[in-house]
């Protein structure tokens, strides 16, 4: 199990957070993004139009709005091995 360390934050006494394990060199994380059609998905398009480059292991699922996100999507993704997920809108 990951160890945790106590950290004093601004408004709470020492909250324990997991210490991230150091990253094995050849490991390729699977990242999943839930993006709102109007803003984040459009921003992803714009970064392509401007030929900006970013790591390839993120894939984007288009949604009508981030409000549409259901916990079961994120949990389903994690259960099936996705390493990280973010929601952008």
């Amino acid at each position, binding site marked *: 199990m990951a160890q945790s360390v106590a950290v004093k934050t601004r408004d709470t006494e020492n909250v324990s957070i997991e210490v991230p394990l150091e990253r094995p060199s050849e490991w390729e994380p699977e990242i999943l993004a839930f993006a709102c059609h109007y803003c984040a998905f459009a921003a992803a398009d714009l970064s392509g139009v401007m030929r900006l480059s970013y790591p390839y292991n993120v894939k984007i699922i288009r949604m009508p709005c981030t409000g*549409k996100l259901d916990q079961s999507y994120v949990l389903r*993704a994690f259960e*099936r091995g996705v390493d990280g997920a973010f929601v952008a809108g």
Partner: protein
Amino acid sequence: MNMNTPTNTQKRGSVLIVGGGIGGMQASLDLADSGFKVHIVQKESSIGGTMVMLDKTFPTGDCSMCMISPKMVEVARHPNIELHTLAQITSVDGVPGDFKVRVIQQPRFVNKDKCTGCGLCEEKCPKKTHSEFEQNLAVRKAIYSEFSQAVPNTRVIDRSICLYLTKGKCRICEKVCTANAIDFEDKGREYDLEVGAVILSPGLKRHNPWLHQELGYGRWENVVTSLQFERILSTSGPFSGEIKRPSDQKHPEKIAWLQCVGSRDPHNANPWCSSVCCMYATKQAVIAREHDSNIKPSIFYMDMRAFGKDFDKYVDRAKNEYNVAYRRSMISDVREDPETQSLIVRYTGDDGKLTYETFDMVVLSIGLEPHSDVHEFAKTFGIDLNNHGFAETSVFSPVSTSREGIYVTGTFQSPKDIPETVMQGSAVAGSAMSLLGEARGSEVVEPVLPPEKDIEGTDPRIGVIVCHCGINISQTVDVKKIAEDVKNLPGVAHSEDMMYACAQDSQAKIKKLIDEKNLNRLVVASCTPRTHAPLFQETIREAGLNKYLFELADIREQCSWCHMGENEAATKKAGDIVRMNIAKVNRLEPVTTDSVPVTPAALVIGGGIAGMTASLSLADQGFAVHLVEKDKALGGLLKQVRTTLEGAEVQDFLRTRIYDVEKHPKITVHTETVIEKSEGFVGNFNTSLSNGKQIEHGAVIVATGGEEYKPEEYYYGENRYVITQRDLELNLMEKGPEPGSSYVMIQCVGSRQEPVNYCSRICCQDAVKNAIAIKEKDPNIPVTIIYRDIRTYGLREDFYRKARDLGVLFIHYEPDRKPEVTPMGRGVSVTTYDYMMRRPVTFQADYLVLSTGLRPHPASEDIGRRFKLTRNADGFFLEAHVKLRPVDFPSEGFYVAGLAHAPKNIDETISQALSAAGRAGVLLSHDRLGVSGIISKHDRDLCMSCLACFRVCPFDSPFIDKDGKVSHNEVKCTGCGICSGICPAKAFQVNNFTDDQMIAMIDALTENIA
């Protein structure tokens, strides 16, 4: 001039719009959406105008391109709009409702049907020149597109520098173009267009500061124009958003903005104020600091003209949060320090001494001025220009030119900001609709579509098309491999790769495939669904398939373009993206969209000038109007105003307007009436009034107007020598100025200080108008105006100069040192601190005139609550989008006009009223309101009425039905899906985004790792 002149000729259902800037685009969309054919004639190779060159806009800081590019795509794709780029009008004949115009189109040398905008030609073209779009800070090729998101994005060849067209050599672009779209034989063409009305929106030219050698533009490299600085700020600009000095590419620390370059300068440039420079300078300073926090901006100005809605708050935030230094002094010249190429500026400091300050960069806030060929332009269209070269219009009909049937919008009418331009766009659309009312829909052809194939109960047979997009995708992603890999996935009946999926021939091929292979669903892997999904949806609809049985996998913008050089990983990722969309399309169901009837009538609340103007315009368009006024008579606040700044008689105009409204057959006036109860939704409102009447209507225009602030300061009410501008105007009109008396005026009484921190926009004009009236009657009556900023923006600047020429004294005061008033036997004495002489001065005034501001009308609070229309902190109604939807409310079917939205002048109120009528006209012109396909569907059997959706839906579409259970009003639904995210019983599913479809996509994406 009456709004609706009867003409005998048959009317045409089409409109010509000259100029494709934001004003022209807004007018074209409003007209096209309400059944008129629109022709946009644009001189440059792409529409967009000035707004596309901007990085961000004030006061919200939204990025300009993100706001305007969806509009441009909508214009390009709209079936009723035809774009004529690289074209100009040479002659206009005919009568209002039936004009014949001659168009000359320059050759583009690129075939627009073949070119897919892949950009290969531009890459290979050897000939470079300065890019006008990037304000000469970057270079472009002979074959180019103006900017990366140009519409149409077909390339164009600049024949003045193309090596082949000038010297007969090269033709490289033709060789590399895989779509063989290059056509050097293109001669351009000349043709006629028959239209019912003409709208002029050519915009304005930026003043070229080269004229002012003393400011160093063109001599010192680090002196740039404000538009150049806008490109420097822009992430798609020459330095991709990194703020650098043109001379040594270093990050500047101290930047100075010099205001009024070419404006308010009658001797060697333009006498008028360009209205927008104070605000864009503030915005540029703020955005610069956001990019690079150690930038120290200073703005040198005469008057800080932040007169618009929330502008003062924006300037205060710039001062306090972004510590932009504002120096109230004009700079006469700029010198360069040769070693550092920094710039030295000289001005009088607060302590009165002459101070030299060095800046790394100087930005010249250049003003706006008419195009150089404006006179010839006016001659072509047969319209008059005013003495400054803008289109001649009157205060009371600000969008009609001197020639009937020809309208003007935007900066060509006078310098203005984006919201006013968009308002005038909708206003001219409204006016054209009034003129051509009965010809609506006559020139618009509805495409005939085959019946939809019933695919109920059939297994999915998916067609998969993987696009090369020339080399844009295939250079990074192995397109053939993907087409091969997905061939035998469940549900896939056919898969192949195509060079250009969006090209006309590919579209035809897809239709053939659907028939031959009996396909019932389609996946296209190419660019972004946001721009190209509608194109493919229309194609499969024409092949008899429900258009929602389609998904576009984005493997260009979101894969090949951003993983260049990592072909193996990019191919794998593209494969995942295509498989994800195939999994989703397997589960897509056909979506039927129903529609709701629209009652072709409008409810207008408030019988002031705004409400009356909107009512007349809507009635002329052919819609019934119910005008509700709470007082005994129509007229509102304008009843107390005698003349406009320009001297036009207000009461005569008001009387004719009231007469027109009361006699118009289509308008029912309800005076001494308020709203009792109102329910329903867009297109289907049902309102009961306090006079017992029950009315049905499809739209609501809120014009509840404003109220004059009754001052408590400066002994008003206690001392009869202390009056307001209104009182002064009245007794000037009746008795004229008292000989031997003296007047002192104080500005910003009750405005621009917490808790009322906004500018009421009209008080400076009132003061200057009255001061001129006094001086013209009796020049030796002393008149003194004590002010904070004189905000006579736009063409009103002439009157400020006229007042100074007539001897009116102007003295500046700061809010922390307000003028002190002490009542005397007769009149009052006013003491204020003079910043020029650096000591207090006292005036004996027989009359102290207070310029009081405007407040929102108390009735707006009740109307706001009743119709759930939000208001901002100052109590004015909040529009849907400050720049692009200035008259719409967020909820559909509601529009605002006049002082209820924000303080404004008479002509601006009339523009906004016409605009609201135009927007409402677009809605009411449809007899049925189509409901979009991508909406949330509610299953009442699963629903347990727990009200979670009822509480979170931003559009109030779930409601408690008569049987006490929750129902869902699909017309109000925008398909955001917040209800389905929170629903514990999973009773809500959004079409094409159902839970099982989303889960299927996640499963497909995680197949190789689960």
